[in-house]
Structures are given as structure tokens and as C-alpha cells.
């Protein structure tokens, strides 16, 4: 039995039994599956060793099939959960010097060489302080590449807390991604986008000295620069609402989702 504290709610006990009614509501009556239900379900998903991977897989599939994941309020709710649960790395001299990141959404289907990790390492050697968020942990295996290259172990939580020394590079693994990936269901690009932005917000929101290169498979991230300026859940909600209102974008988005969601 696990407990979590939600600022808006009393402490709740989480178990497989408390997850079942949420899953049933999503599957049987998705129209009544609220943003709060999603928050509660994600808190179950992100609690270690609580749910069976098949339950997580069923949840992600139902979320996609019923298009609940595309509701602006769902994105906003999920971002809030992820932001609350994201780990905050300790970085030396962040007030004096800036850090940079290069991160891709992945999922383009081209199976290209993992260029962003290599580019991050090259930039680190040229004097940049690079903190590389490995968002591809679900979709590809760049971290595995690094591990094989040098026997570098990425100790998930340890690396997230790694004290960042001098000019070099650090890798951060959004640990929630791996939990989702164990279900064998590929989270949709929209959710990956969400996870990336939530972790980013946690990592960089309060830091002025942050610069980044974001790489996207689609037009979706064209909305991000403005969101980075006015970074808030409200702007994320607004961006997703704009996305879904535009018919052309909706068609393109559907094509993206259908090609990617069940890849694994």
C-alpha cells in the first residue's frame, strides 16, 4: 500500500484495487473520465511496483482509443502530476553559468544514428555545460549506446541527483518513462511531448541561465517557443487547444498517433 500527498486533496492510499475503478471508468464511460481521474490514475502509474505492466498497457491504450489523451484538460492534468513528481537535479553554479540541453521527441521512424547524444558530448568538449535529458529512453536506445561505449551506468535517480562538476556533461533519465515503457505500449507523441515539457519545466523553469535546442518530428514543437516565453500549464493547455482546433493539424496528428502508438 502506498500513499501520496496531493496539494489539493487529502493523502490517498494507492493500490491495484484503487486503480481498477479508474481503469473501468476510462474503458466503459470515457466521457465521464475527468482530469482529476487522470491525475489519480497517473499517480498510480508512477508509483513504483504498484501496477502490473498489463494494467499500465491497458490504461495507455484506452487513453488513446478514447482520445482522452488529446483533451487539453488531460494534458494540463498530466503535466501537473509529472511536474510534481519530477526530480530536481543539483547543479553547481547555476546562478553564475548557464546549462544547455539538446533533446528530441523521437518517434520519427527513421532509425537514424543517435545524433543528439553525440552532439551533446561534442558540445561539452567544446566548453558547453550540457545536461542531456534522455527522453528517447522509451523509443530508442541512446543511453544504451553510451553504456555500451564506455561502460557508463545511468543510475536513474542517482544521475538525477548528480552534482554537476565543472564543464562536462550529465545525463538525466526521466524515470517515469521507463515505467511506462515496461507496459510494452508506446506512449503517443503527445504524451511524450508532455513528459518532455514537464521535465523541462521542472529542470529549467526557475532558472534564467538555460539554453536549449529542441528537435521535433513535426510542426507540434513550433508552438513551443512561445510556451517557453510564457511557460505555464495554462499556456500548455492553450497550445494543445489550438492544435486540436485546426482540422489540418488534427488529421496530421492522427496520422502520427496511428503510426506510433503501438510500435512496441
Amino acid at each position: 500500500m502506498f500513499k501520496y500527498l496531493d496539494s489539493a486533496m487529502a493523502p490517498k492510499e494507492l493500490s491495484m484495487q484503487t486503480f481498477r475503478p479508474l481503469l473501468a471508468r476510462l474503458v466503459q464511460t470515457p466521457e465521464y473520465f475527468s482530469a482529476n481521474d487522470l491525475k489519480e490514475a497517473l499517480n498510480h502509474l508512477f508509483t513504483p511496483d504498484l501496477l502490473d505492466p498489463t494494467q499500465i498497457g491497458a490504461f495507455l491504450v484506452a487513453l488513446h482509443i478514447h482520445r482522452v489523451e488529446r483533451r487539453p484538460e488531460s494534458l494540463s492534468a498530466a503535466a501537473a502530476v509529472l511536474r510534481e513528481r519530477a526530480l530536481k537535479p543539483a547543479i553547481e553554479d547555476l546562478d553564475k553559468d548557464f546549462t544547455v540541453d539538446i533533446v528530441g521527441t523521437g518517434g520519427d521512424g527513421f532509425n537514424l544514428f543517435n545524433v543528439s547524444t553525440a552532439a551533446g558530448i561534442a558540445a561539452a568538449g567544446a566548453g558547453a555545460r550540457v545536461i542531456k535529458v534522455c527522453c528517447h529512453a522509451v523509443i530508442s536506445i541512446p543511453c544504451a549506446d553510451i553504456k555500451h561505449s564506455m561502460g557508463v551506468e545511468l543510475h536513474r535517480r542517482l544521475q538525477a541527483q548528480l552534482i554537476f562538476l565543472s564543464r562536462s556533461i550529465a545525463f538525466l533519465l526521466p524515470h517515469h518513462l521507463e515505467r511506462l515503457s515496461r507496459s510494452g505500449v508506446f506512449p503517443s507523441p503527445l504524451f511524450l511531448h508532455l513528459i518532455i515539457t514537464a521535465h523541462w519545466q521542472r529542470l529549467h523553469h526557475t532558472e534564467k541561465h538555460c539554453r536549449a535546442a529542441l528537435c521535433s518530428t513535426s510542426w507540434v514543437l513550433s508552438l513551443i517557443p512561445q510556451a517557453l516565453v510564457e511557460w505555464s500549464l495554462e499556456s500548455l493547455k492553450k497550445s494543445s487547444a489550438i492544435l486540436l482546433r485546426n482540422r489540418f493539424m488534427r488529421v496530421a496528428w492522427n496520422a502520427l498517433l496511428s503510426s506510433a502508438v503501438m510500435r512496441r
Partner: protein
Amino acid sequence: MERALVVCGYEKIDEISCAGPTWIWELNHGRVTEGTIITPEDFGLSRHSLNRVMGGSPEENAETFKRIFCSGGNVPKDLIPVLEFVLMNASALLVVAGIAEDYKEGTKLARESIFSGKAWKALETFKDEGARFASKVILFRIS
């Protein structure tokens, strides 16, 4: 967030494309520049088709990575497309970081970083710090 570059290759790849144009959106101290285009030539590099920069298994990718980053400047001919693909993306990062003035200078700095072994050294530093940190935690748990 001071500066950011959002990119999308014409082929809908989530990198700066080595095969042709790439859309970019730039944020620079609150000002957003939308939808401009960059090409490999802006980096002073040649174009390479995407099938020349394909990935493989973790072992194969690690081998490619090592052959480039430990080359000391003698990068095998078959890996030039991958090297230049890495250089243009590293260059963009160095421009965003404010370390390079433009993409050509970024390419030059990234090339020097790889060929001099400084990039490999950066990864080694990370490895050593990670191992040191992990051993501390293990010792803490034992005690």
C-alpha cells in the same frame, strides 16, 4: 529560458537534417523568430542522404561512436556522413549556448572538440563522477 532553437528536418526527422533543409524556430531573450530555414551549407558541410546515417544495435552504435570520437581526426571515410550529421547538430547547440557566433564557427568548434579528444574526455568525466557518486551511495547503504 534565455535562448532556444526548435528544429524539424524537412523529412520530419527530429534532428537538423544532413540531407537538406530544416525548419527552425528561435527564441532569443523573449523574441521568437518563426519558420526560417537552414541547410547543411549554412554549417559549411556537405549534404548526405539519410540512408548514410542510419543507426543500428546498441553495440553497432557504440562502435560508430567510438570510431568517430576516438579517431583523433582520422575519421574513416564511411563515417564522414555521420560525423557531419553530429557536427551540424552540435554546432546548433553551441550557437544556442552562445559559445559560437554562427553555425560555421560552431561546426569548427565541434570538430576540434571531437578531434582533440576533449569530447571523449567530457564523457569520461561524467563516467568517473557517476561511478564515484554510486560508490558513495553504496557505502552509505552498507554503513
